[in-house]
């Protein structure tokens, strides 16, 4: 699956001075069986402007570039299911005495960094190089929606407050029933004094609020209850 440009270039370069690069995907914990990769998986080598090679995945999960001229290449593996780290592949000119022995070197490279910034070496060879590239992460395309979760629902503070208040409403009468008379009297005494529920409490005042009187301009006993009445309206 070479592009036409690559073909033209491959033809220009005689086979004698071409380096052979094999890239393989070994089995790893992330990708236990590389044979499951789809056949659209391919490797792209981008060289100097105009030079580009594209190799499809082979039966043994390798990519073969049979004839590379001397240049510095960026190797990218594209697969539907997994992401792979980019590599830098350098093919140097062969020494005059052994034209088949082109020094080749592979490093990891980092996007967004200068090209000279090389990562760990992936191997070196003469005329031939075999590089293993492990999958770096699986691709997860899908976003799942936050569905309805009962535990999460119950845990939310609003619901917890609701449950507590419901317990109070339903539970209090029974607690009161079962109290001994003295404690009960004491409790009632306390409740009658409380500012909210007692006879002079805010709750009662709101309920007994004389709206007509207030609107007629009658001066209220307490300003607070007037404000409350306004809100209620």
């Amino acid at each position, binding site marked *: *699956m*070479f*592009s*036409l*440009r690559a*073909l033209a270039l*491959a*033809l220009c370069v005689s086979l004698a001075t071409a380096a052979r690069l094999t890239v393989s995907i070994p089995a790893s914990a992330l990708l236990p069986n590389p044979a499951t990769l*789809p*056949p*659209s998986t*391919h490797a*792209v080598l*981008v060289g*100097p*402007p*105009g030079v*580009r090679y594209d190799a*499809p*995945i*082979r*039966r043994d999960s390798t990519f073969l570039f*049979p004839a590379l001229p001397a240049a*510095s290449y*960026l190797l*990218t593996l*594209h697969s*539907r299911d997994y*992401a792979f780290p*980019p590599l830098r592949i350098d093919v140097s000119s062969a020494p005059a005495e052994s034209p088949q022995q082109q020094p080749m070197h592979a490093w990891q490279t980092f*996007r*967004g*960094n*200068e*090209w*000279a910034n090389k990562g760990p070496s992936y191997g070196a060879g003469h005329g031939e190089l075999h590089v293993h590239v492990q999958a770096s992460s699986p*691709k*997860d*395309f*899908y*976003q*799942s*929606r936050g*569905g*309805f979760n009962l535990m999460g629902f119950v845990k939310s503070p609003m619901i917890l407050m609701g449950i507590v208040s419901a317990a109070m*409403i*339903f539970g209090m009468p029974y607690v009161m029933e079962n109290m001994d008379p003295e404690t009960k009297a004491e409790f*009632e005494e306390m*409740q*009658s004094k409380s500012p909210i*529920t*007692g*006879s002079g409490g805010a709750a009662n005042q709101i*309920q007994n609020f004389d709206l007509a009187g207030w609107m007629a301009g009658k001066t209220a006993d307490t300003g607070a209850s007037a404000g409350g009445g306004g809100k209620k309206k």
Partner: protein
Amino acid sequence: MFLPLIAVPLLLAGSALAVFTDEAWNVDYHYALLGHPKQSTSFFHQPNPSSRASLIFTLSEEGVLGAINPRDGAVVWRQVLLPGASAHNASFLRAGEGQDVVISGIGSQVAAWSAGDGRQAWSLDVNGPVEDVEILELVDGKDASGAKDAVALSGGDHPLVQRLDGATGAVKWQHQLGGTDAPYQVSASTTEVFAISLHKTILGYLKLKVTSLDPVTGHKTDEHMLSSENELATAETIVTVGANSASPIIAWTDSAHSVLKVNIMGTKGISSFEIEKHDGQAVERVELHAPYHLNSLSHFLVHYQTATSHWAEVFHVDLKNGKVGKAYSLPKLSGRGAFSTSTSDANVYFTRVTRNEVMTVSSASHGILGRWSVDGFNVAAGEGEEIEPIHAVSDVSVRGDTVSAVRSAVLLSTGDWVLLRDGSPVWDRPEMLASTVSATFASPAEMETLVQQLEAEAHSNPIQAYIHRVSRHLHDLQRLPSFILSLPQKIVQGFLGTSADGGIATDSFGFHQIIACATKDGRLVAVDAGNPDKVLWNQQVADLQPGQIWQPSVSSPRGGVIEISSKASAGVQYNASSGEQLASILPIDLAADQTAQEVKYTMHDGGLEATVDSSTTWHFMPTSGERIVSLVPRPVNDPVASIGKVLGDRRVLYKYLDPNLALLVTANDAARAATFYVLNTVSGAILYSNVHSGVDVSSPIASMLSENWFTYSFTAEALGDSPKGHQLVVGELFESLVANDRGLLSSTANYSSMQTGTEPFTLTKIYQIPEAVSKMAVTRTRQGITSRQLLAVLADSSAVVGIPYGVLDPRRPINRDPSKDEQAEGLVRYSPVIDFDPKWYLNHQREVVGVKDVITSPALLESTSLLFAYGLDIFGTRLSPSFSFDVLGKDFNKFQMLATVAALAVATFVVAPLVMRKQVNSRWQFM
């Protein structure tokens, strides 16, 4: 309160840009296409020799190799062997009997592919164009692997016959075909390999030269010229050079198709047969169908086609005395027919597909073994168009003496590839869409009728309008009973969440838009974006000669109408919903803006020239050595909701909004530089320009301009400290970079690009991206309120990604964390690398191969934009770049809502008496 409000959509944006699990595969649609299959490269083959299940393999005119499951028509695997291939490219696909590989030959590459999973077994570059590939069926006995070798014939300066090892692709031997003869084909019998080349005589006629080679050593054993006299003027009248049968044959006719000559390869005798004339009509096409197996009977069928009818004759080859004799003929039938050959053991069967029936005969006698009538192919076609089979491949199941079932994959004249099982269509693949060259969205005509009626009411006098309205309402009332009847069902479906999208007429969201695609072979095909499983209509709109190329452009000038125009003809309009051609006399549109003037651009001497009213207003000449790569104007329909950007502290940065902007890209091949200009297309002023060096100008440079921002991407070479790889540049134009200040424009209410020369302030950022972008587009919504997404086509990943603008924003702070105000705006710290998050892949697990262009259209809902990508594959989806804020999506749980309401109601009824009692008690007790 305001700050959280702007922060909310931005926060939501993060989660909304992904493809949701429940929407994937439902909202989006994808046709994984191969292109027009060729007769010679399509066949049924068992990918696993031990199992009887077979797949359909084809190498299409578009250069795509693929395997199709005959059960449902799904693509099992495919490989693009030659991107941008056309019908002119010679291509070959062979499969050896009992082999688990298929061998392809296209361009200058011969490759073997694992038939079951589509991985490459080996590939070989033969120095020159591949002229033919065959599989050597003979068994050496030496080879233990069982892989059958291939023979490849290559052309070019040094024509070669090569024998390739079936397991590794290594060259076993090669034979140079000397001389100046053009290599034509290669063929193999049990004992010999034949290379056929065309020898040009002095008179300009062709002679067939047969070179026999020893299959083991590759040495030449014999060479002879066939005395074809003066019949062969061009190679096109050579009917076949049969391969891989017990007795390979060569057959040719004269240019008038009056006589058929057959030669058994390896012999010098030529049998000659008169072609009978039927009804005095000239035979247009002669095709030969022969089995492809060494051990099958050496029978073959010759198919004759005239303009109105077709018939066939079956011939038998007598191997002992090398004679060819006619056995029987199949009667003439009107219309076109397709014949295909299948084998079962040694027996050969011919299947004939016509527009009315499918029938199978044995090669030995003319008795019909199976016959099934065809009640239509179940594909869309033009008005009054007769659907004809073009070619077919068949798989025959034989039980005893009868054919129990036959499956035929038939290419139809509409461009559909259908499978007929016993005459009834099982699936169809709209392969004509693989050659789409132009496409557009159009709203359905049904939606437009109401608009037209309302307009009619608005423009007539009140009494007439009133009568019109009442009669319209009365007319609408007729639909009431059916509406009421369907109501319960609708409600139930609504609660169960199974409500299917309604038809085009009841589409209230604008999802049902019609997409019209003009294809390379002159057809116009329409698909409904809301119901993409079926092609709406499909008709021939241009009568193209074979090999003729047209460059149509499809557009929708107004709702419900599709206009197609090409260089040769003015626009022809079609009804979007039915495909009916509209009257060629167009009503003059009075509402058109009389004050607007058109500026036209033409490429002139490598430069750009703009003319208004036939007078040139400006020129743009690139500097010497540069050529114009592309010009991308701002879309005509590009609504912008806000003229400013609201900052975190509620101040405003004013956008530089000008409807007449265009992004021009020029490339300098020698200097390897690309220059990008933002032009004002009326005045010709250059508003912004930037040059990048070390650019790979031969790789695609994608660019896009919308609203007040532009973006482009290119592949850059490492220069000095710069990184190597693919880069994406984003620029945004502002009236001024000072908040709350409109710069020079502040005092003017109106402005004209002709008079004032205000220049924008441009902010740009460069990002590194992991792979090349081949095409860019942007989402479009009705009002432009929804934030935009950049759509980028990734050719290497076969994907379309939607990149949120927030990621690209050129105002991302560099080398510092964003301030509180910037955080409120949603800006994050600049990082030089944008990694395409897999969640941005709009196609998710689908692989959208060969996308050439992406078009977008707003839906009626503000939140939603429709997307359609075409090229080889067809892909479409709906996008909500700012979350679906105006429609209840699938995430809205109707059951949960009802349950909550019910629970609250119960709680209210239970608690109300308790509270009442408590209040009463408290008054009585504490008074």
